[in-house]
């Protein structure tokens, strides 16, 4: 199959932001997650937990509450005192509304989903009516000073005597009048709302209990603690045949190392997230009907999109962070070696550039041109294009000014193979094509979205010959445009699962599409139909181990000299598909990690199949071919991320 020199890169110092809120939508089976940097992500739990949309954050917009209302409308509120509604189609913020009560700490939706309540810093609770296209202020409930309706005194005692204030971190109000509170003393308490009396007390942690979520049936709920533990409580019968039921702490889970800041309860799973940046989805085995691979625990740490782009010609890597970009030049070696060797470096990697964004907005996307002379990135309201000049070891950066008005925000940026054209997918669904000249640019064309659709394009791919541009949104299929004639060439039929990666092969112009259910299709653009190989593999089906991977394919590339090869990778493996080899069936040994030193060529040939997989590099954030014999792999070891998190609550290891 081949021998590669692999640039193994671990200096991408990326740390995901901690999770602040999670909100589950039962109707669409989607999960909204907000992070401490203000980013809001939407996960489609039906589509293999794929992170299908995201809204970039903003420095001043710390999200404190997130909820779904009126079916599938998503609202957030935060410390800047604003309520925000998100446009899930155009992937931007629909509007913001100031609640005029100072920072907002909490938000809840009325049971029918028609009213929104926010709790503000000044102690007031404000009620908003949700109208079809906005929200409207309705009432203000001021803090009741003397005429308290019902007061529940929470015991401040915490493992003996404590002078600390006890803070209620969360409450839940059940329809039978029970109030459940979780507090900083590690207690989960059940109150009778009619009498204001404490009914039951569970001391579950030595640290704060920070979050609570109740299932729709109100027969189970989940709490998260600062020790990283998640506890499941269930309403169970006291004895086997009595109707009397009791809340019982049933299962503890320890999937986190840090504070569990947010929990959610879907009908079949417990969802938790916190400071350690993992989103954990723990299916409830008793609720899962089919015990297949979907019932397994999911731990999502990395974004399902690319944060890295690469200039093959100059061997440059561009890393995208929340508020800055880093440009690195890879090192080199003259030595050779055999499989597994680490070669001595003749030149180490260089950090060339640290480019900080202007303004408080987070970077949405970025790209470096294949020639390495252009860098483009975009925030929510501004688009930036830079020209790089290399003179020996010196590098100079020049911003291209006077960007046209329509280029305000991009969801995806791509340079053509010859670096002469720039493709920008803006929100509202339009695609702009810009010709790049030395130090300036020219707007060539804009493909407007199909009439009636407003879906934004999140993924772009251009053919190496520069004739074809493929663009995909989250659901409505892949559109292929002819760049020469500036017309829509064809649309690949839409598939049930969102697209996770796209690429067009050189020479053949076959479009390879990876979906979140781990299916891979190959579509011939000139023929406007699926290729023979794609049909064959659909007929036979993928190997079950391939389908059981739980991270999506985020990047596809091709070997310049071997047209039969497709390179793709997810977070835990990279794979070269050799279309000339037989496809594996479920009986075939899929992963073939051992070098076949002792086996005869016959056995090797007999067991060889199309999928050549390597799991050496993980977690793998980016992998590409620099040239025929060189690969670049960007890893981000979890230990390095943990090292940058605040230390977890110390627990004694020995004794009592």
């Amino acid at each position, binding site marked *: 199959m081949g021998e590669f020199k*692999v*640039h193994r890169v671990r200096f991408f110092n990326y740390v995901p932001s901690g999770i602040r809120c999670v909100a589950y939508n039962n109707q669409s089976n989607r999960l909204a997650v907000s992070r401490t940097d203000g980013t809001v992500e939407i996960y489609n739990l039906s589509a293999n937990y794929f992170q299908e949309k995201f809204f970039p954050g903003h420095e001043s917009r710390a999200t404190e509450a997130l909820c779904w209302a009126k079916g599938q409308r998503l609202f957030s509120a935060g410390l800047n005192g604003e309520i925000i509604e998100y446009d899930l189609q155009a992937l931007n913020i629909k509007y913001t509304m100031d609640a005029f009560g100072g920072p907002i700490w909490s938000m809840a939706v009325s049971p029918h989903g028609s009213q929104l309540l926010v709790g503000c810093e000044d102690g007031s609770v404000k009620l908003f009516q949700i109208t079809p296209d906005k929200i409207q202020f309705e009432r203000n409930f001021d803090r009741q000073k003397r005429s308290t309706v019902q007061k529940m005194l929470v015991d401040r005692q915490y493992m003996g005597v404590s002078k600390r204030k006890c803070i209620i971190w969360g409450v839940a109000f059940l329809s039978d009048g029970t109030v459940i509170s979780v507090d900083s003393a590690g207690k989960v308490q059940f109150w009778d709302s009619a009498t204001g009396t404490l009914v039951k007390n569970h001391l579950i942690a030595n640290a704060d209990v920070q979050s609570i979520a109740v299932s729709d049936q109100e027969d189970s709920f989940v709490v998260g603690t600062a020790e990283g533990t998640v506890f499941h409580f269930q309403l169970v019968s006291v004895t086997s045949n009595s109707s009397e039921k009791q809340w019982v702490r049933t299962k503890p889970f320890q999937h986190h190392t840090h504070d569990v800041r947010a929990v959610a309860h879907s009908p079949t799973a417990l969802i938790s997230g916190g400071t350690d940046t993992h989103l954990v989805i723990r299916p409830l085995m008793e609720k899962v009907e089919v015990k297949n691979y979907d019932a397994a625990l999911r731990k999502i740490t990395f974004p399902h999109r690319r944060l890295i782009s690469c200039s093959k010609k100059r061997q440059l890597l561009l890393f995208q962070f929340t508020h800055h970009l880093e440009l690195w030049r890879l090192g080199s070696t003259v030595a050779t070696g055999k*499989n597994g*060797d680490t070669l001595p470096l003749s030149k180490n990697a260089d950090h060339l550039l640290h480019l900080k964004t202007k303004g408080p907005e987070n970077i949405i996307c970025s790209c470096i041109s294949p020639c390495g002379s252009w860098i483009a990135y975009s925030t929510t309201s501004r688009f930036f294009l830079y020209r790089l000049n290399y003179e020996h070891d010196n590098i100079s950066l020049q911003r291209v000014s006077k960007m046209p008005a329509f280029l305000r925000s991009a969801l995806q940026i791509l340079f053509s193979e010859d670096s002469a054209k720039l493709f920008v997918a803006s929100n509202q669904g339009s695609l702009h094509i810009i010709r790049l000249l030395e130090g300036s640019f020219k707007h060539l064309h804009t493909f407007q979205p199909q009439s009636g659709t407003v879906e934004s394009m999140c993924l772009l791919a251009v053919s190496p010959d520069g004739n074809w541009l493929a663009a995909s949104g989250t659901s409505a299929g892949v559109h292929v445009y002819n760049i020469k004639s500036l017309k829509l060439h064809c649309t690949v039929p839409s598939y049930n699962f969102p697209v996770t990666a796209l690429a067009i092969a050189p020479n053949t112009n076959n479009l390879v599409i990876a979906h979140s259910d781990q299916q891979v299709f190959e579509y011939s653009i000139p023929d406007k139909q699926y290729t023979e190989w794609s049909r064959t593999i659909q007929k036979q089906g993928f190997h079950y181990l391939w389908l059981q991977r739980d991270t999506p394919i985020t990047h596809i590339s091709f070997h310049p000299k071997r047209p039969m090869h497709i390179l793709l990778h997810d977070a835990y493996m990279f794979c070269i598909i050799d279309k000339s080899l037989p496809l594996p069936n479920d009986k075939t040994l899929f992963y073939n990690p051992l070098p076949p030193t002792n086996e005869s060529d016959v056995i*090797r040939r007999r067991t060889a199949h199309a999928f*050549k997989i390597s799991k050496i590099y993980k977690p793998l954030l980016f992998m590409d071919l620099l040239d025929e014999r060189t690969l670049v792999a960007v890893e981000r070891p979890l*230990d390095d991320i943990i090292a940058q998190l605040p230390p977890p609550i110390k627990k004694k*290891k020995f*004794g009592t």
Partner: protein
Amino acid sequence: MAALEEGFTLSAVPLGAGPHGLLGVEQSDRPDQFLVTDGGRTVILYKVSDQKPLGSWSVKQGQVITCPAVCNFQTGEYIVVHDNKVLRIWSNEDVNLDKVFKATLSAEVYRIHSIQGTEPLVLFKEGAVRGLEALLAEPQQKIETVISDEEVIKWTKFFMVFRHPVLIFITEKHGNYFAYVQMFNSCTLSKYTLLPGHEEKSVIQSFTASVDRKVISLMSLSSDGCIYKSLIPIHPNDPEKNQRVVRSLLLKTVVSGNVRNGVALTVLDQDHIAVLGPPLPASKECVSIWNTKFQTLQTSKELPQGTSGQLWYYGENLFMLHGKFLTVIPYKCEVSSLAGALGKLKHSQDPGTQTVPHFVNWETSQGYGFGSQNSEQSKRILRRRKIEVSVQPPPSKQLLSTIKKDSEKRIVEELCKFLASKQTPDFHTIIGDIVLELLGRHKVEPSFYPRNALMQLIRTHVLSYSLCPGLMEVALEKTDVQMLQLCLQQFPDIPESITCACLKIFLSISDDSLQEAEINMESVSDYIDSVQEEKMEEQTEILHNGFNPEEENCDNCDRELNKKPQDTAEETTSCPVIPKRAALLNAILHSAYSEMFLLPHLKDIPAQHVTLFLQYLYFLYLKCSENATMTLPGLHPPTLNQIMDWICLLLDANFTVVVMIPEAKRLLLSLYKFVKSQICICSELNKIEVSFRELQKLNQEKNNRELYSIEVLELF
């Protein structure tokens, strides 16, 4: 000390209008509620703590209640007999006794007995006994005559012995007394003649009885004022023969002689009885508590308005008529420290009524005794909760018939054949049935003890305690330690009382008889053998255990320990029990238990056995701490947690005893010292945890590659 508390009157309404006072006070299915049957026509349900009646039912004018009302614990209904032959069954909601279920029987009823855990029994005046279900299925069935012509039933009582109901009744004929013991699991009726001891001919005025494992102790109060005791075996050697039982004097002149009526007695617990009657000829009547062991009067209380000579005792309350009113006097036998220390606080509760976890009792579905198998379900609406007779598919019929009559060898052969055949889904219930069948035959003919067959059945791994409730009892009776070990290893659901009974046997059985038993030694083989060789040199290692406690806080205990250095060395290095006993004890350590249920039983273990067991546990603990993983070598050895839990349990249950025994004191001190050193180690480890983490980090960094490297990868 036993004490009578301040009594209170239960009813403001005068009772006992009839010539014979009250008919009876019986328990209802709810605690604290009692059924009081007046001599006339009324049954009243009282709640004692509230001192008020909850319900009252009367029979029609002209009818007379002839037998005290009882509660059927299985259905919660009440049963009464009026006019000797008419049975009435009603429930709390019924108002009028006239409209409730009625059955007219063919013979006169003496008493209905009902206790928790079994169906009510009807005792006829002629001595025959019927289960209520069987009787109701055919009320007019013929009732045989058991006792002879002029014999009259004087007194009767119903017990549960190992979950099996046992009925005793006393008859009198021409001044001679006879005791009949009816066993229902084997359907045997044994008759005993009560022979007077040395006392002159006297009339017995009151009876009471308590039951132990194997004997009923019958106590009688004679007209001479003395209490006599007779021991009646539950399992007679020869049921057919008329046997004799001698009465022996238990307490002398507790009441004044020559009192015609107003005298009664009842057993309170193992050592205490309550006596009602005038202590001196001239004095007023009073109720007194006697300790039979020390023959002392513990307390007494005067009843100036006279009594009817009837006394009932339930829970913690004594019931009696005082004047015309029903009076309740709470009775308490407080745990005195001495009694606790001497391990004397025994619970003479019958195992059948104990609060052991409830398992399906397969035995009831088999139907014991007198024809409840063919009892058709009666169609009365009132009988709501029916006992479900689950239909068992006949297991290998041939095998069952073999069990009934053939020799043990033949049974084993048949069994092998059966076990070799294909296992059906209800295999475990069939195995359970076979065991029950074998045990049933063993009960009928005690010489038949099919040990091999039983062992083979246990080894099928499908049996559980609840599938064959009698098996371990039989093994306990036979002190068959091998079978007990096997049961402990195989059964997941052994009640704590049985576990503890096994423990007692394992601790008390002599070494000689152990040597003969074939005991599975796999759990001890590896660490007990090694002991003998290494003996002395090990001691230093044990005491250090990674930490040297010298000259620290344990000075005092060290000094005391060092007084007898030789003994200590012996104690710590050699196993205090022989390997076979160790293997048996290990089986106990592995068994499942619930602390709450186990603790009361552990208190019954004699002090020297507690010490022995503690010594063994301490030995195991030392063995455990010899290696870094804190485990014992060998196949399936006891875990450290099990050892620690049992040490704690034993100490909790018997602390006062252990503290007072000199040899145990040294053991306690060494345990204390050891635990202390462990705590020190933990705290030291906590202190250096940070350093450990740094070391770990260093180790990781060594493995960690650098931030950037170029490697060679070959894909195959």
